[in-house]
């Protein structure tokens, strides 16, 4: 019994950690730019595939598998230029437009990214060898928990703290929060909103690519894995409400736990669960993100 609960919680935490990063990326971009980034899932997939490449290359170069965390994080961070290019060349032209069109542009971006990923990596799943197992496992109350999962959860928390610190203590963070509260005044105070928007979007997408890269040892990178996460992130943002990382944090926890419990109880519905949860969340608690989007 305890074994089951511990196993369930561990699985939930791991999933939550993953979702949190994508949701945080979504939150950051929406909070400041009021743009809903439908492509957040695609960035996740991009990070995942790039992660496989970085790890494979580093292993070929002789890096011991236990240090694979380094190339994984590097993979996530290195993709910053993708978000940057997309923001400067595409997104910035639709800020003045109706919210539906901004939305549709991110949808188009998702489509393009998906095919771009297929072009570079093909459409078959890709895995990295050895990394997951090399971290070993731990036994808690009879439940076997892969240590890598714990590593991911820790990484997620660290990133959450870093982001929190950035928003509250750094100059950039304060500017970003001001821009989120009142873009016009911030602009009038001499802040270059174009630069802020570019940086914020890049940050948002990097959180997604990092999330994708980090999960790679535990699962294969697959083309359609992004949409599921995108939907879950929306559920998370809706639960957590607009405004704080804390919302994304607790929202992710809740979503992860509900998902794990539901899969445990009704495993046949695994594919459908995600969408059912999203629908349930959106229906039960529509405040926060979406009420403000009107």
């Amino acid at each position, binding site marked *: 019994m305890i074994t089951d609960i511990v196993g369930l919680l561990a699985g939930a935490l791991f999933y939550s950690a993953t979702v949190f990063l994508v949701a945080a990326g979504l939150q950051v971009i929406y909070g400041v730019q009021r743009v809903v980034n439908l492509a957040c899932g695609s960035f996740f997939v991009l990070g995942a595939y790039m992660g496989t490449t970085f790890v494979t290359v580093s292993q070929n170069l002789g890096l011991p598998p236990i240090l694979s965390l380094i190339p994984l994080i590097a993979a996530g961070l290195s993709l910053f230029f993708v978000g940057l290019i997309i923001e400067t060349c595409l997104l910035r032209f*639709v800020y003045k437009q109706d919210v539906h069109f901004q*939305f549709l542009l991110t949808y188009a971006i998702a489509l393009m990214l998906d095919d771009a990923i297929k072009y570079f990596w093909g459409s078959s799943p890709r895995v990295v060898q050895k990394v997951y197992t090399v971290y070993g496992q731990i036994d808690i109350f009879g439940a076997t928990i892969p240590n890598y999962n714990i590593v991911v959860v820790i990484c997620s928390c660290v990133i959450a703290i870093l982001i929190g610190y950035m928003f509250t203590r750094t100059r950039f963070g304060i500017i970003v929060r001001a821009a989120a509260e009142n873009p016009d005044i911030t602009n009038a105070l001499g802040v270059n909103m174009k630069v802020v928007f570019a940086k914020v979007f890049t940050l948002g997408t990097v959180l997604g690519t990092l999330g994708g890269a980090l999960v790679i040892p535990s699962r294969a990178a697959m083309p359609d894995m992004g949409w599921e996460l995108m939907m879950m992130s929306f559920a998370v943002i809706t639960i957590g409400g607009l405004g704080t990382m804390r919302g994304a944090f607790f929202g992710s926890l809740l979503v992860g736990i509900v998902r794990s419990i539901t899969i445990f109880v009704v495993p046949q519905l695994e*594919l*459908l669960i995600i*969408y059912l949860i999203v629908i349930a969340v959106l229906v039960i608690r529509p405040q926060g993100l979406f009420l403000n989007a009107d």
Partner: protein
Amino acid sequence: MILRSLMKGKILVGIMAGLILLFLPRIATEHITFVMLGVFGFTLAVLGFNFLFGYLGLLSLGHSLFFSLGAYTVAFSMRQSIFSMELIILITILVSGLVAILIGAICVRYTQIHFSILTFAFAMLFYSFLIKFYFVTGGDDGLRVLTPHLVGTNFADVPKMQFLLREYYYYTLTVTGLTTWVLWRIVKSPFGLTIRAIRNNQVKSEYLGISIWKYRWATFIISGIYTALGGALMAPVIGNVDPSLAHWFQSGSLILMTLLGGFAQFVGPVLGALIFTYLQDFLMSALHYWRFVFGALLAFVVIVAPEGIMGAIDSFLKKIKGGV
């Protein structure tokens, strides 16, 4: 004066288009006629989508649900030995209407982006359902669609291709024409005026006594039925219905067609369906990374010309009118 000649111009274009459609099987290649069959189906699908988007202002990211629902209804009916197309159409209207009533009741209570994500989720739910419950739905492989009976006549002895390009072509043309006319009537009715009011100004509409969510619900239902009808008409043409019809990519196609042609005019989406279907046919055979082109095209339209081709034509005509 200029307005009158423009009106005459529109009528002229309409008549020409009608004539071309009527004689297409005679004057064009088999391939072109075959693709036109797809245009008919997409026309209804896209008119349904845009009734919700262009007239009411609600963006559904999940209309692939209705499109696939219509297609699967055809396949299912045939499995139950129902081959009469008229009966199948009726069943499609009933089934899609019911689904739209249920899903609509949930979705239309919510705000714009929220609404979009909800519809997206429902479509993906349906997609997952189609794949997962393979013993009912045929799973990834889908279900075969046999030759329907048109107006009571069984065309089993006619070669499939010939049937499609002749008998089925004219049947679909008629059905599409009729249902399009019906939607046109609806758009020009007090109902149509009311939903346009809601899109223009929701607050003022409420203060005029208009019950917002009731009209949204009704529009959603009509929209779902039309898109399902489009899917149903397409089913015999595709010959095999599979879950990809419910995928978000299919929803995206409908959106692209609508934006490309122009969402603010009644015929805009129809034009978009026409262009898109032929374009897709041409490019899909030539390109492997079709999604990328599709996405790029959507991005282009959104950034550069969100009002679409008809919108651009309209603005151009207005400029001429204003200049006189």
